[in-house]
């Protein structure tokens, strides 16, 4: 009884900030100003704040920006990380542990430690400009529209992929090391090449781990703030998290609008959480319980 009372109190405490954000987002600001923020709604609740944010702050546009970064980011990370994990667990070579350590440790570094030299690399690496695909007001640069990595989708995707590969390679290695090496060895004897074994033998066996990692990586990359803050300059290319921060000063003139914007930004991760909670939790714990 006491236990449940305690837990229910905690749950209320945990949910309250979210509830409050929802409540604020549904109130017209005139109502809040007149009656104070802690008061019953006198003019009813509405989605007007959401409408304002959605259209005037261009939220759909930033959703698309985010997806353009997150989807390739997740796929490439899984491909590279599974290659690393495959090579480091299915073959015995001299440096496989060291390689794995480099990847894992790299992911544990605070990003700020590397940011300034990375910024330099991004400003000094020539990248071909292959034009862009224009859909409506959305212009997706193929490779680079300024011949740099800086301020480009490709640049921000690249750092996510490299940074997250460190984490994903570690987790996938933990998973793959439970697969017996004999599978790879006998496939090699049968004349299959290494890439083929990776793609059609090992990856299918890792499907649960890959699904868990995909869910987790989606959320990680979606939620990133720092890389996009530094490596993207143009508002046009920013994902929704950094866009929100910019809007805080310019567009979000009141807290009710801020609440609506923040809640819109967290709809995709919350959907993922509701639909794929098992995968998400599995992804987080795969690396820890076996490691």
């Amino acid at each position, binding site marked *: 009884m006491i236990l449940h009372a305690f837990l229910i109190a*905690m*749950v209320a405490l945990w949910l309250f*900030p*979210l509830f*409050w954000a929802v409540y*604020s987002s549904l109130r017209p600001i005139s109502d809040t100003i007149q009656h*104070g*923020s*802690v008061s019953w709604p006198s003019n009813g609740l509405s989605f007007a704040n959401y409408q304002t944010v959605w259209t005037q702050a261009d939220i759909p546009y930033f959703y698309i920006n985010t997806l353009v970064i997150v989807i390739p980011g997740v796929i490439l990370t899984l491909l590279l*990380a599974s*290659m*690393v994990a*495959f090579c*480091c667990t299915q073959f015995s070579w001299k440096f496989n*542990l060291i*390689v794995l*350590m*480099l*990847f894992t440790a*790299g992911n*544990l*570094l*605070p990003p*700020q*430690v*590397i*940011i*300034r*030299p990375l910024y*330099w*690399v991004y400003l000094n690496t020539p990248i071909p400009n292959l034009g862009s695909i224009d859909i409506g007001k959305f212009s997706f640069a193929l490779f680079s529209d300024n011949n740099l990595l800086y301020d480009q989708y490709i640049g921000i995707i*690249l750092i996510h992929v*490299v940074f997250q*590969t460190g984490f994903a390679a*570690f987790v996938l290695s933990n998973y793959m090391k439970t697969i017996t090496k004999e599978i790879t060895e006998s496939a090699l004897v049968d004349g299959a090449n*290494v890439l083929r074994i990776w793609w059609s033998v090992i990856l299918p066996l890792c499907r649960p781990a890959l699904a868990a990692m995909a869910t987790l990586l989606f*959320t990680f990359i979606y*939620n*990133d*703030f720092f890389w996009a*803050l*530094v490596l993207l300059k143009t508002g046009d290319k920013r994902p929704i998290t950094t866009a929100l*921060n910019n809007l805080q000063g310019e567009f979000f003139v009141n*807290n009710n609008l*801020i609440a609506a914007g*923040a*809640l819109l*930004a*967290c709809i995709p*991760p*919350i959907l993922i*959480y509701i639909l794929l*909670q098992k995968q*998400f939790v599995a992804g*987080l*714990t795969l690396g*820890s*319980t*076996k*490691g």
Partner: protein
Amino acid sequence: MVGVPLTLDLVLIWGPTLASVVLSFTNWDGIGPVTNKNFIGLKNYQFLFSGYTLFWPAFAHNLIWLAWLTFIATPLGMFFAVLLDREMRGARIYQSVFFLPVVLSLVVVGFIWELQFAPTDGFINSVLGISKSSNVIDWLGNPRINLFVALVATSWRHVGYIMILYLAGLKSVDPSLREAAKVDGATQVQTFFSVVLPVMAPINVIIVVVTAIEALRAFDIAFIINQGKNGLELLSILIYSNTLSEASLVGFGSAIAVILLVISLGPIILFLSRAMRTLA
């Protein structure tokens, strides 16, 4: 197959790490090439420790951040895990609620808590009835308290994260161990401290590492609240503001990066030594 990812990792992660170390011995301002003339020995470090007024406050804030997570947020997450690790009605719902903030971006977490703590129309001051009075508490602006607002916001997310990690560990404890302890007449508390906790050693290390790394990486929430100024200075913020703002004190900022790197190596090495033992 390892070549491509490894090259990228070396060029984009480890190369820049080394570059930060080298740059910390220079006065490079980010313009033009680094030449011999730029090397100034340990001057950046000297200034850092004795002249730069923001360094020790930022260092202290990181320490407070670490202490708060270690002694408050992490134990609370572990406590939730222990409570929920049993057959009980609603356990899944409780778990889902505590875990919910973990999926949210720290930017959103920051915004959501600003709505609580905003001085004039935030929930807390309104409920206290001081939002319009002259003794309004400036939760976000007062340098003596805004760090704790950031810590509350960050804990909202950290507790659920730790809870999930710890729950996974608890579930992997062999139930027969507890049975045996019960048969021997141990209380629940005794069983936890002398049977469960020791078996959980590997997960405890992960929890320590996660907590330390989170404290060293802290950036987003402080930046969202006030760009990490006025009471919210952190080492990560000082690196950002020195190397990437208009002042462009790249060499000096890199010295701060090196300090942060050296501190981070502690938990990183602890983690690797554990993890690689099981991977080998």
